[in-house]
């Protein structure tokens, strides 16, 4: 009952009369070799000639072109109906063709069974792994995309479902039912967006996660809201991740930058990415000197971090401006101080009693005009 042994046996049974080992299981498209091409042209020159036809058939069999070999031999059989050489080759060619179809069928059967099983589990049990496995095998099958999107909807993952429905619509844009499903998913996602932005705590957080859709207009709002919710739920590490993700979408948002600065301090996290995010946030908040420090640390840890050089250059420029302002401010303060000092007499102040009273212009004898 061993299939392999049987297969070998089948092959041996059929190949015993071939001088050359047969080629691959199926005839390669456009297969040709000098021997094959020569035999073909010789048969074309004289259809009735036996020898070239037999050579062509042998070459085709050797190349694994069994169906073609059968065709060539059947044509020859019409010209030479009783010739044993054609008969025996035909029998072998048909046998090889039979095996080829049989084993091809076995391989196809195993593969098709896997796909059917995955489809069943995807459609009826909402098994997303099965959906993905089915899609790996049939990446352009709109039906599988729909099944996956339906499974995602069952799991309340409307945003993910929307993306998958969109992919299915790309493949089958005229399907009205599919269009309706995509709209339903969008409506459901908008409801989740509302819950995220207006709800509280865990429920709102879950809604944010389910509603998040890459590239959507509200992507940043949802991410920032998620960060704030996490921060309010005393999940600083996760909140920091969410703020960092939000900052990537909108680097100049001051609220997000503030969140990053606060949480990098409280969590003490100092990996390259976090430090880079902190540096960017400080830059957004206009704190150049601190930004330079954070960005330099990030660069030291990971010199290949994207954009860190540009950010660092901007931070350094800002830091220089800050330093200049500070220097100016210091100088101004100095000037003021020195002016103040200059206004004060260098001699010891005379006792108040000795200071001559200031003479006012209107001091004088009273007149009528006063």
């Amino acid at each position, binding site marked *: *009952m*061993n*299939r392999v*042994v*049987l297969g*070998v*046996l*089948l092959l*041996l*049974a*059929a190949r*015993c009369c071939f001088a050359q080992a047969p080629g691959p299981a199926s005839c390669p498209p456009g297969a040709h070799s000098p021997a094959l091409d020569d035999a073909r042209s010789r048969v074309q020159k004289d259809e009735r000639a036996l020898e070239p036809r037999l050579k062509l058939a042998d070459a085709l069999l050797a190349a694994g072109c069994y169906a073609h070999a059968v065709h060539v031999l059947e044509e020859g059989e019409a010209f030479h109906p009783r010739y044993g050489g054609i008969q*025996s080759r*035909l*029998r*072998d060619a*048909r*046998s090889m*063709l*039979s*095996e080829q*179809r*049989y084993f091809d*069928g*076995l391989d*196809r*059967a*195993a593969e*098709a*069974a*896997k796909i*059917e*099983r995955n489809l*069943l*589990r995807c459609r*009826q*049990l909402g098994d997303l792994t099965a959906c993905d496995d089915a899609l790996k095998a049939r990446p352009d099958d709109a039906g599988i995309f729909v099944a996956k999107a339906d499974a995602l909807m069952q799991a309340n993952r409307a945003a993910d479902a929307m993306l998958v429905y969109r992919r299915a619509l790309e493949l089958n844009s005229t399907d009205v039912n599919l269009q309706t499903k995509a709209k339903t998913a969008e409506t459901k996602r908008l409801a989740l967006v509302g819950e995220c932005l207006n709800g509280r705590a865990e429920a709102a957080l879950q809604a944010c996660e389910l509603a998040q859709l890459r590239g959507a207009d509200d992507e940043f709002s949802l991410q920032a809201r998620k960060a704030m919710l996490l921060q309010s739920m005393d999940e600083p590490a996760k909140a920091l991740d969410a703020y960092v993700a939000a900052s990537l979408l909108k680097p100049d948002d001051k609220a997000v930058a503030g969140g990053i600065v606060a949480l990098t301090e409280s969590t003490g996290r100092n990996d390259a990415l976090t430090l880079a995010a902190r540096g960017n946030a400080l830059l957004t908040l206009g704190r150049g000197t601190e930004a330079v420090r954070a960005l330099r640390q990030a660069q030291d840890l990971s010199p290949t971090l994207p954009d860190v050089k540009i950010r660092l250059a901007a931070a350094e420029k800002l830091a220089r401006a800050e330093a200049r302002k500070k220097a100016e401010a210091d100088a101004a303060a100095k000037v003021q101080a020195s002016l103040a000092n200059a206004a004060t007499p260098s001699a010891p102040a005379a006792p108040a009693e000795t200071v001559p009273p200031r003479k006012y212009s209107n001091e004088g004898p009273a007149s009528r005009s006063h």
Partner: protein
Amino acid sequence: MRDAPGVRSIFLLMVVCMAGCVSRPPTIAHVHIGHALTGVHVTPNHEGYFVQAEKRAQEAIAAAQKAAASNDLAEIRKDAAAVVKATDSEEDFGVKQALEMAANHITFAATSDDASINVQKSAPVFAGNVGRVLERCALIDLLGRDVQDSRTLAEAQVSVQEMSKLAQANLAGEDKDGNGTVGSVPAEFGLVQLRKEVEAMVGRENPKYETVDQWFLFNLVKLPNGKWVFDKLGRGGNIEGYK
């Protein structure tokens, strides 16, 4: 030389007897077909591979229907395992193995020196047409594993319902394209349609195919040179690998 009427009569009687009593052996091709349709020494009850496949398909249907009707997860698992065993079992000639062997033997038939053009042409078609049954067998196997791994009754029921449909289709065929005809194309074939195909092939045989005698069925051997012959001297039955 004196003509003895008694001797002549005996001679004539012998000739008549030989003509009437000694039948010609079947062709090697027909014996291979007989292994698929009538009998072979390795199957339970020495039945032909195709007969074995049909029997096992019936058993699979019965077990699958029982599983599909049950609300007990443990019972479903047990019955699903029985469906798999009847469908795909190396040790017990499941539907898959029995059908594979039937297809192999029809291919053997086509390879034989005495194979008719009819058999030579029909064998590749048959070999291609068994694909859907083998596919269902593989699917039953996968779903059977899913049943064993199921964590809930509902999950197991989804798989056994499908197994039941597949087991049924393996025997009777299906109407996959929804045209109202079961088994209208090879992709819908079950054993019923495949048997019809083999019987049609056999029906076209000239000289006519006769049910092969058991002795021929059980004593066909392959020589080292690749030729199939009958083991008239009883030298040890079939060679290794040929069943």
